């Protein structure tokens, strides 16, 4: 038995939490697995391990990891600029960060493909140096980077604000150079937030459909994402096949998120964070 908390209302709040989580998350997710179980083992393997589906896993998870990594670098930079400097129009820039949250993803996809297509503003410039973005796997990364940006910024920003510039000044006055200040003082403090932001951006990217299909080109074996495979199976009224692929995605995502959490725990200890 766990030690009784001094806060009242434990049973009620825990009961509600479990009820709520079951209703919103667990029951719908378990339906995915139940539907999958209507397949025989051979049918299941056929549905989830055909070359086309495997190629889509590689693209979806690979592009999501790359996109989340890009967001870590530029998201931290953005959060840094927004917390450490005062400049004209800062509030507006701050609001821009949330755009990918608010914009319907299909609109994002259409805008991105319009800009990055060979006849678009950026696409025409890139075309001159031989880089095609729209309708290639690179386009998938661009779309996933777009939708994932706010997650890193919004998780790192409050931590940086909380950290205050004084600790950096203290470090500097004790003789640390800029790199040491970043590495020894700032990074350990924001590290958990960075990893959380990474995990959120990654998870969001894995499930993204709306923005990607407009810019991906959707070529089988090349630029077809797993959510599109699921939609394709649904279009053929193959409910069980669709849920089977969804179940595999869930399991892979769960393992990866679990690994990210494990890494966070490990690096917290290593960087000397006392919980």
């Amino acid at each position: 038995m766990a030690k009784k908390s001094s806060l009242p209302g434990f049973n009620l709040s825990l009961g509600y939490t479990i009820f709520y989580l079951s209703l919103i998350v667990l029951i719908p997710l378990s339906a995915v697995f139940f539907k999958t179980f209507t397949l025989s083992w051979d049918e299941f393997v056929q549905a989830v391990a055909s070359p086309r589906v495997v190629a889509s896993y590689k693209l979806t998870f690979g592009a999501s990891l790359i996109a989340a990594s890009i967001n870590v670098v530029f998201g931290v930079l953005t959060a840094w600029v927004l917390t450490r400097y005062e400049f004209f129009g800062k509030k507006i820039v701050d609001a821009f960060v949330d755009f990918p949250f608010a914009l319907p993803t299909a609109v994002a996809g259409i805008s991105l493909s319009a800009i990055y297509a060979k006849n678009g503003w950026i696409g025409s410039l890139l075309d001159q140096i031989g880089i095609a973005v729209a309708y290639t796997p690179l386009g998938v990364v661009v779309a996933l980077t777009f939708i994932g940006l706010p997650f890193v910024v919004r998780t790192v920003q409050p931590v940086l604000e909380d950290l205050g510039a004084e600790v950096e000044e203290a470090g500097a006055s004790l003789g640390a150079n800029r790199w040491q200040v970043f590495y020894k003082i700032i990074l350990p403090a924001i590290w958990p937030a960075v990893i959380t932001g990474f995990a959120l951006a990654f998870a969001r990217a894995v499930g993204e459909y709306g923005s990607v299909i407009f810019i991906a080109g959707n070529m089988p074996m090349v630029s077809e994402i797993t959510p599109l495979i699921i939609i394709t199976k649904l279009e053929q009224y193959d409910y069980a096949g669709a849920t089977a692929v969804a179940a595999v995605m869930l399991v892979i995502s769960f393992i990866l998120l679990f690994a990210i959490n494990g890494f966070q725990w490990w690096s917290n200890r290593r960087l000397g964070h006392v919980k």
Partner: protein
Amino acid sequence: MAALLQLKVSIQSIMHIQTIIHQLKLTAVALAGAFVFSNSASAETSLLNVSYDVSREYYKDLNPAFIQYWKEKTGETITINQSHGGSSKQARSVVDGLSADVITMNRSPDIDVLYERAKLIPKDWQKRLPHASSPTASTSVFLVRKGNPKNIKDWDDLVKPKVAVVIPNPKTSGNGKYTYLAAWGYVLKNGGDEAKAKEFVTKLFKNVPVLDTGGRGATTTFAQRDIGDVLLTFENEVFLIQKELGADKFEVIYPSISVLAENPVALVDKVVDKRKTRTQAQAYLEFHFSEVGQDIAAKHYLRPQVDSAVTKHAATFKPLKLFKVEEVFGSWSKAEKTHFADGGVFDQIYAK
């Protein structure tokens, strides 16, 4: 520690916003449902027509005409609610319980599924109205850029090297399926065998740089993103592109032979019996075949199917050699199984 706490709060607030958005969506759906329901409960009769994505403009004209016709004939005021979306998604909604009085699709398998999955209609629904319950049809034609720089005249020109062809994905789009079957039928109708047809279709899809999930997406890719030398899509979509984006930018090319893409309609028996709207739904469907209904179809570049209307609009629609899917492939379900099911011929094109 405080930092961590704040972090958690900020994450929770993000999650919270998403949950709220989801709840809003749910509320909106519930409200829409309630709206339809209250409509049916009141004195005014309403019909819900669940249709495919690009029939919006057609029904915007057809529905007011029917409402007026029905008012004059019976004195009853009727409202018609429309729902549009990707065809098999729409069919799935009806199977899963959306109370559609009538369903209007661009492929018969998307209506067959109402019988197969939920027994909402009888198996022989296509026999209940003339022309296999299809008041209108379209066909797959080619749209090329002004001046036809790649000199595309017929199917054979599409498989030449360095010709980029835009076709919507046959796995997700009825439009794409018709085009694929048209290409296959072209080979068979010219004395080729199955192996030849497979080779031809494989070559054709090797020339496709982008597979959009639907017909409208393919239009955007071709017309606005400047991708491809030729777009293969429905005739009515081609006319619409010319009307919207300028007749001076593109040219229509009619191939020597193509597929007849019928747009079938059906009333959903289980729903109309429950809502007591069978008379109105039946009249609405029959109105599709009336002279007014056929004229409206022709206005939207859908080929009329009633003989008198075909003659009347012969100037608009170039006479073409068209074959039915059933004629070449036996049945739609056979075509689906052989070509578009997972591991089928279409998948083999992309297998490495």
